[in-house]
């Protein structure tokens, strides 16, 4: 469901990055790794249609993502990509429920209250719907962020360093939850990480051979889009 061929990205300030080809089957798990500066963020941005490649093919769930621009890219991203950021970025001004409703506003879609309730229940945080993020524990906040990521039933979930700053037990729980949520939505999963515990946790959960995309160190970059 995700395929890249000779994908290249040119930084606005000069410099170019070439990515290894990769293919991920429907419902599969991809581990994206590589040292700092290898272009993990850029790869995620390309897959999410936030930036356009300079050359190469990029297909996600049958969509030629490389061809998407502007509003079309935004609309496609809203429907097809679920994103779990490293910092959760739940809006402090809004309740848990409204943080999810905000996703509908962002996507320019009518709010679906039933779906919000359903997703919150699936992740066991329905009871927290009226709280604001500052009243949540770290684990609760991560569940809410995950609920937001799967709200639109995306075909692909991108998780950026989901285990950073978690202890071993919590890291294993987080991966388990992520996998479970992806399965429930029949979504494919990309986990960008340099944490060896992720592969272990996946193996423990029966995903013994995730697709590996390892970016070479220092490939190239000249401006700020690095990681």
């Amino acid at each position, binding site marked *: 469901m995700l395929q890249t061929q000779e994908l290249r990205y040119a930084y606005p300030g000069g410099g170019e990055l070439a990515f290894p080809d990769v293919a991920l089957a429907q419902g599969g798990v991809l581990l994206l790794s590589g040292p700092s500066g290898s272009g993990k*963020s*850029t790869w*995620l*941005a390309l897959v*999410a249609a*936030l930036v356009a490649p300079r050359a190469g093919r990029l297909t996600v769930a049958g969509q030629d993502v490389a061809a998407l621009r*502007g*509003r079309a890219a*935004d*609309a496609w*991203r*809203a*429907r097809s*990509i679920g*994103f779990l*950021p*490293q*910092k959760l*970025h739940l*809006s*402090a*001004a*809004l309740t848990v429920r*409204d943080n999810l409703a*905000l*996703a509908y*506003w*962002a*996507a*320019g879609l009518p*709010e679906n209250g039933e779906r919000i309730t359903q997703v919150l229940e699936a992740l066991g945080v329905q009871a927290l719907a009226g709280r604001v993020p500052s009243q949540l524990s770290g684990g609760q906040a991560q569940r809410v962020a995950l609920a*937001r990521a799967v709200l*639109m039933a995306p075909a692909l979930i991108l998780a*950026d360093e989901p285990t950073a700053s978690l202890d071993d037990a919590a890291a294993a729980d987080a991966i388990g939850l992520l996998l479970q949520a992806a399965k429930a939505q029949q979504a494919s999963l990309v986990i960008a990480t340099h944490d060896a515990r992720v592969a272990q946790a996946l193996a423990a959960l029966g995903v013994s051979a995730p697709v590996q995309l390892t970016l070479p160190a220092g490939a190239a970059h000249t401006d*700020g*889009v690095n*990681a």
Partner: protein
Amino acid sequence: MKTFAYAWRYLWARPMGALLNVLLLTLGLGSITFLLLVSHHVERAFDRDLAGIDVVVGAKGSPMQLILAGVLHLDVPPGNVNFAAVQALRKNPLVAEVIPISLGDSFQSYRIVGTTQAYVAHYQAPVVQGRLWDAPMQVVLGATVARKLGMAVGQSFAGSHGLGGGGHSHGDHTYTVVGILGATGSVLDRLILTDSASVWRVHEPAPMDRGEGKDAHEADHEDHDDGHADESIPDDKREVTMALVRYTTPMAAVSFPRWVNTNTDMQAAAPALEVTRLLHMLGLGTDVLRAFAGMLLLTAGLSVFIALWSAVRERRGDLALLRMLGAPASRIAALLLTEALWLALLSSACGLALGQLFVQGLGAMLGLESALLAAGMLWPSTLLLVPALAVLVSLGAALLPAWDAYRSEVLQLLQ
């Protein structure tokens, strides 16, 4: 419309900052509201009081003083003119109406104006109690005077010399209230009107009336009464303070004042001209205040800018996440601009209320409520400038932060 709701929530997520910005904007907008209102009140008062008076003929001197004294009743008059000369104006074919005005006395600092009934008719003032005067020493009170002094038909009082109050009392000449006028919103409301002959009687060297001296004071002075007022001094020796003149044709404005100024001992002053001059002079003063209000508003704009800028900085990640959730950059910029719009809306409402409050307060403090500042609240269309400025300043301040949010690098911010 969800955008408005979210913008509102984000705005009040930082209540102190939001409150400070509303306050700063309110002060700036309140000052501007105040200035706009005062100039509107003053211009309206002038328009109302000057309506239908084409020219004022009075003693030579400052023409503006003549207008201020005789039409607006704010200043003392430059001097008196001969009554016969004023009457002679009626023969001029350019003149439709001549209303004599005699000033000199007051009661409790309300002016007693000797005139004819044409003066009442000119301002279309209704008589709500009693009747108009039909003999000297009878007075009709303006609405404000009657209300403030609590006087009713049938009561008597003695005027005091001078227009400001505190002059010596004309204890030997008492006026009797015969009527009370309804409120017109014009200068008439704060005047005490009587026949021109009353003023002559009070001021001429020999008190002369014998027929109407019914009270003790009059009786005490009966030995001085040696003739009837209208007979003792011929009209050509009598004086009035000025005359309000209405033309038969607007063309008269060209020739009549020049004719008066060259052929008589009097001067003719055109109220429209003098008031324009006055407003121009006031304008210089309000320009300073306006600049001050502008500075206030600019400060408020800067504060809004800084608040929104830091809000965007603080929320860069949150905003980038909205992009990740599929929000076009324009929707995020719109969210920030809507926050600014809320600020503009709130502070416009508060600023307008504050400005109105200032004007009402000033009116009450200076006792000007029926002179230059109208008693009620006015909502001239110029006040539309206030929300317009608010929107301009707020949106202007939000533009750069919104642009910053618009072009931000999404994934970089989500790290």
